[in-house]
């Protein structure tokens, strides 16, 4: 009886709202082309020295992740070198809302340089704006936010370059023919999607890849177990699969572990981005021929230098500015305030023992 009433109330409310809205019009998508704060403004003084005593904070996607631990080591070294303070802090779950609280805290503490790997390109913007208006320099690394919300982005590699390198390695391993699939992290991870887009475009346009087909993209959410079972699913769904490309360290390790214990070992090629320490075993047992990665420690170092440079007024984030990042050498700021670390390193049976990270 009451349920019937509930239903009718609900229905009439719904109808009312709909009518009202269609009659009056309102704020719809595209009404508001936001123009947020852009750039730090001011002019760069390329000859300035790095300021000492800067406070650095690195905020990873989540703590308890070896990849970010490695980046942190790099950034910490730089901070010490420049005589600054350093903190590594962040949530234990990889969610944007938890990161917001940490950004608020850092801006509260008036941290000079915030090094951030973002869980969401947009959700952090308002907090970042607040931090920047409070005088903090925000440098994103590994995973970017909307360019309007940060000063600079330190990209591990050029998106196009990674995508191309991934395809090249894959093609080499399967002689340029057959079905391939991608095991990614989360579907809205900015960097992953950029690489996948490059791969798609290249597969369409480059005649040497004409016989390769990207049949599916699955997401392991950067969780070990999920990546593992997604690999399983891929192999079952696509019996003719020749190769799996996993441009994420968690994914490639899980996939390698699955392949090495299955009948597909050696039948299905696996490549992507992984750390030498995690992949060493699988390269040695023949599951994996070759994979690539940049050095996360160097990435952390470069991010710290970039942040310090911006905080010291050496750069402002405008295209074409040049600064020196210690032993890493000289870097140039690209379009949209992007600084790129360099081409990825490829690891295979011959060189893998030379690396330890």
């Amino acid at each position, binding site marked *: 009886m009451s349920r019937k009433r509930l239903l009718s109330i609900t229905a009439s409310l719904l109808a009312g709202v709909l009518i009202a809205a269609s009659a009056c019009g309102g704020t719809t998508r595209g009404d508001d082309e936001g123009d947020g704060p852009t750039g730090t403004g001011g002019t760069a003084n390329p000859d300035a020295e790095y300021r000492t005593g800067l406070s650095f904070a690195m905020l990873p996607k989540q703590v308890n992740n070896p990849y970010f631990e490695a980046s942190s080591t790099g950034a910490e070294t730089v901070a010490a070198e420049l005589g600054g303070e350093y903190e590594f802090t962040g949530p234990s779950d990889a969610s944007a809302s938890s990161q917001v609280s940490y950004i608020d805290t850092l801006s509260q503490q008036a941290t000079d340089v915030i090094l951030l790997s973002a869980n969401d390109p947009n959700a952090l913007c308002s907090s970042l704006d607040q931090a920047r208006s409070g005088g903090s320099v925000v440098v994103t690394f590994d995973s970017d936010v909307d360019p309007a919300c940060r000063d600079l982005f330190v990209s591990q590699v050029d998106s196009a370059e990674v995508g191309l390198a991934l395809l090249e390695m894959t093609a080499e391993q399967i002689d340029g023919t057959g079905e391939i699939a991608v095991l990614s992290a989360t579907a809205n991870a900015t960097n992953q999607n950029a690489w996948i887009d490059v791969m798609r475009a290249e597969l369409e346009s480059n005649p040497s890849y004409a016989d390769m087909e990207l049949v599916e993209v699955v997401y392991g959410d950067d969780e070990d177990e999920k990546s593992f079972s997604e690999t*399983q699913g*891929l192999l079952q769904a696509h019996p003719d699969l020749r190769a799996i490309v996993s441009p994420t360290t968690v994914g490639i390790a899980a996939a390698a572990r699955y392949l*090495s214990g299955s009948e597909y070992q050696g039948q299905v090629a696996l490549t992507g981005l992984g750390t030498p320490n995690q992949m060493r075993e699988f390269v040695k047992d023949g599951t994996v021929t070759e994979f690539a990665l940049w050095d996360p420690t160097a990435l952390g170092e470069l991010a710290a230098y970039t942040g310090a440079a911006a905080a010291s007024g050496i750069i402002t984030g405008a295209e074409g500015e040049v600064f020196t990042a210690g032993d890493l050498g000289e870097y140039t700021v690209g379009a949209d305030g992007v600084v790129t670390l360099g081409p990825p390193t490829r690891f295979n049976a011959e060189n893998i023992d030379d690396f330890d990270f």
Partner: protein
Amino acid sequence: MTIPAPTRTPTGSTVLDLVLRFRALGLLLALAVLVGATASVNARFLSGQSVRDLLFAAAVTVLLACGMTTVVLTRGIDLSVGSTLGLAAYLTADAMSGGVPVPLAVLIGLLVGLACGAANGAIVHFGKVPPLVATLGTLYVFRGIVYFTAGGSRVNASDLPGGFLDFGNGTLLGVPYLFLIAAAVLAVVALFLRDYRSGRDLYALGSNPEAAALAGIPAGRRLMTAYALSGTLAGLGGVLYAARFGTVDASAGYGMELDIVAAVVVGGVAIFGGSGTVLGAALGALLLTVIDNALPVLSIPPFWQQAIVGALILAAIALDRLVALRAARALRKKGSHVG
């Protein structure tokens, strides 16, 4: 006065049997339909490798579902299993990578699980804290401890003894060792719950706690047993997790508790205690695992997986309710009666 010889009408036992069998049958049917449908889309779903994968994946869930069942039977719930598994997995793997011999490291995992379970039991029984609250609290606490000990480090497969990993990925006549272990545990727990006095006491406690007190059933000891068993099995699950995946970090088993509760509920164990079997719970776990594995094969977006699990839980409890009402009506209609 002459008493007529008792004539046995078939109702009593057969009604009960039918209900129970119907429940298990329903699950088996759902499993069969799902496997059939998936296999018809892609025959490889029934290939040796695929079935092996399924059994690998089901092993840990089945183990934890066994423990959860014993707790749920007593009107309890153990939300801390995921965290316990994570703690045990990490400490075991860490011990091995530090050179502790495998048997000792496995023992460490089991003992960690036992300790976690005993802590839950003590808070529930001696502290009189409702199980939901107590184990929700320890879910946080145990996970926090894993974070503390693990920090950002991770134990990689290459740090673990090869024999341990081979065991984790090995099979006997095509059946994974891990699944054999889970099946053995399932058999032992099923036997314990069905054929041993203390096992039956768990049903009694969940069915009517006041009557259990009158009958002199040692509630404290039994509750401790149930929670300790759940903890120990979560610990064992942690060891198997480490063996299977090789890579263990602080997030191992994160969020797993809901899957296990779902498996148990779908398997027909009443959330308010007193009825259900581990076999049902294991079938529930198997069903959920099969769904997990079938979705990619059926090319259903993985996003549907969680929604399907949710719908399944609702369907299962609604169905149980319906069956229980029917059975109650059937039972009430027949009395005993004195001739």
